[in-house]
């Protein structure tokens, strides 16, 4: 995407000022709840609801201490669970989806367009249609209450969005490079590892960051598959914390909420350009 914005219509300064004001107002309203959450997590409990100010009068990290150990299992443990699951999901998605995208864009084999159409079809199929048999199957495998149902499907390229994202990118890599490599004696494996993957770091990074964030954020699958609190992800922990504190300790709740968003926020700050371009090029939301 180009960085220069061109004014299509040559607006007058007045209009421009109005547009500015509107955009600023909207961003303030949108950010206010988030800022309030963060600032409240550093306020003492009695200050949270007595003022709408975003700057704590008394700065304290006490809410974090209360929240961190607010459940029978420390939040640290759940963050670790979430991290392990999210990292495995990243690896699984990168490996399986890049392989599928390579097959779809670069290899000639019988039935390719048939499978490709089916792949696009699975993007449309709501997960609910397969949810219950999947659950029963994993139950049969004895995988319920383990991380396997959350992780193994990622190694089977279940997230067709990433295949799609990578296909878009691979198509932009000149075919001449493959052919030059063929002339150099390279087979499909070597071309994949030595040419395509090294040239695809931007899309691999995009896919990795999205995978991490979505897995980190996922609530439904852990809710179904994880039963013991020691196995909980941060999201499940947080929602258990909502029930446990029952609004009696808003400071701790907001502190833990802030913490569960923090990893996403950091990734967002570091990789926002990749994420935004990923969305703009696929035209897919989230």
């Amino acid at each position, binding site marked *: 995407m180009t960085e220069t914005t061109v004014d299509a219509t040559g607006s007058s300064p007045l209009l421009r000022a109005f547009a500015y004001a509107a955009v600023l107002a909207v961003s303030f309203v949108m950010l206010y709840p988030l800022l309030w959450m963060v600032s409240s997590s550093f306020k003492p409990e009695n200050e949270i609801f007595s003022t709408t100010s975003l700057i704590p009068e008394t700065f304290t990290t006490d809410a974090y201490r209360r929240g961190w150990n607010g459940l029978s299992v420390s939040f640290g443990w759940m963050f670790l669970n979430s991290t392990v699951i999210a990292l495995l999901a990243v690896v699984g998605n990168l490996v399986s989806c890049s392989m599928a995208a390579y097959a779809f864009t670069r290899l000639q084999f019988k039935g390719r367009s048939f499978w490709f159409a089916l792949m696009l079809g699975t993007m449309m199929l709501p997960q609910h249609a397969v949810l219950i048999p999947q659950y029963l199957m994993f139950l049969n495998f004895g995988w319920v209450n383990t991380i396997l149902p959350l992780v193994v499907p990622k190694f089977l390229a279940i997230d067709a969005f990433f295949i799609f994202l990578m296909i878009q990118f691979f198509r932009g890599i000149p075919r001449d490079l493959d052919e*030059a490599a063929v002339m150099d*004696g*390279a087979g499909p494996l*070597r071309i994949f590892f030595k040419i395509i993957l090294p040239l695809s770091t931007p899309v691999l990074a995009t896919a990795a960051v999205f995978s991490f964030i979505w897995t980190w954020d996922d609530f439904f699958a852990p809710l179904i598959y994880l039963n013991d609190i020691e196995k909980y992800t941060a999201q499940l922990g947080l929602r258990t914390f909502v029930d446990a504190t029952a609004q009696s300790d808003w400071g701790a709740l907001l502190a833990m909420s802030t913490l569960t968003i923090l990893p996403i926020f950091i990734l967002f700050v570091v990789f926002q350009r990749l994420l935004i371009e990923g969305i703009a090029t696929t035209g897919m939301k989230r």
Partner: protein
Amino acid sequence: MTSLALTGIKKSYGAIDIIHGVDLAIEPGEFVVFVGPSGCGKSTLLRMIAGLEPITGGELRIAGARMNEVSAAERGIAMVFQSYALYPHMSVYKNMSFGLETARMPKAEIDLRVRKAAEILQITKLLDRKPKQLSGGQRQRVAIGRAIVRDPQVFLFDEPLSNLDAELRVQTRVEIAKLHADIGATMIYVTHDQVEAMTLADRIVVLNGGRIEQAGTPLEIYNTPANRFVAGFIGSPKMNFLNVSVDGRAGEAVTLDLAGTKLAVRGIDARPEGLCLGVRPEHLDVGSDRGTPLGAMIATHVEQLGGQTIVYGSLKDRQPIVATLNGQKSVRAGEELRLTADLAQCHVFDAGGRRVAVQSA
């Protein structure tokens, strides 16, 4: 040095035939240039030789061995792509060594070969750079270097100069010719530029619509084009094609009528309808005492190139005609000129475009 033999080579994409059966024998060490208009199938033919496209029909032999089913890497061929196709993420050195590493050659041997090739191409200083940091001409050299290191039997070039500016193109052209002289490998070179074809080739193969129109040395192609297509494709400005009719015939001798001017020729055995006379602009002269008179030409536009004067105009019957005159001639638009030509350098083409044997009477 290796020979190639193409026998009845065909290519179709689905129901569409692209190459219609090409027969060609290429001698060891020969420099062959495929030339033809865009889309005529030059690249397709080259890619079939390379092994990048399956051959639909016919047979390809290299050094006598059938190659149709042999993979690209095992044909002993290297190819230089129009886009250069340098691996953007690898250094120049890595670009050149990639193929050798694929072949599991010992490191020391690889190093030796890369450095030797780099020296030949004078790119030793660039070995650590990435392709992005190179100029167009330097990339071109690396692409050639990548081909050289593998010490191939056959080099293939697909329009390798078309991304260079005019000056660099001439310079690189000379270097490729030198390279061929130095290493003596068989080379097949694709271009749509007739100057490249004329200057580089031992033999030119003129392609059109997936067929060979003519194969021969550059001068054979220039002096005795097999048909109207070849005659028109090679030479600049293009050969004039002038409609003529048969005015009379007495045994071998035939009288042609060109816009009212009678020309006596011999040896036309073709049907008399739809004949045309082909004369290259550089073989026309004006106001000269030598040569055969072709009648009058009205100049409509004159281009002064310094070394040459190009006159555009028409004959009495309004047929357009172009003449290239040596030196600086003072010709003005609207002027009537007396045209002459050496009939020995003229050609007669029949209605089907074939060149028919002809001698001046």
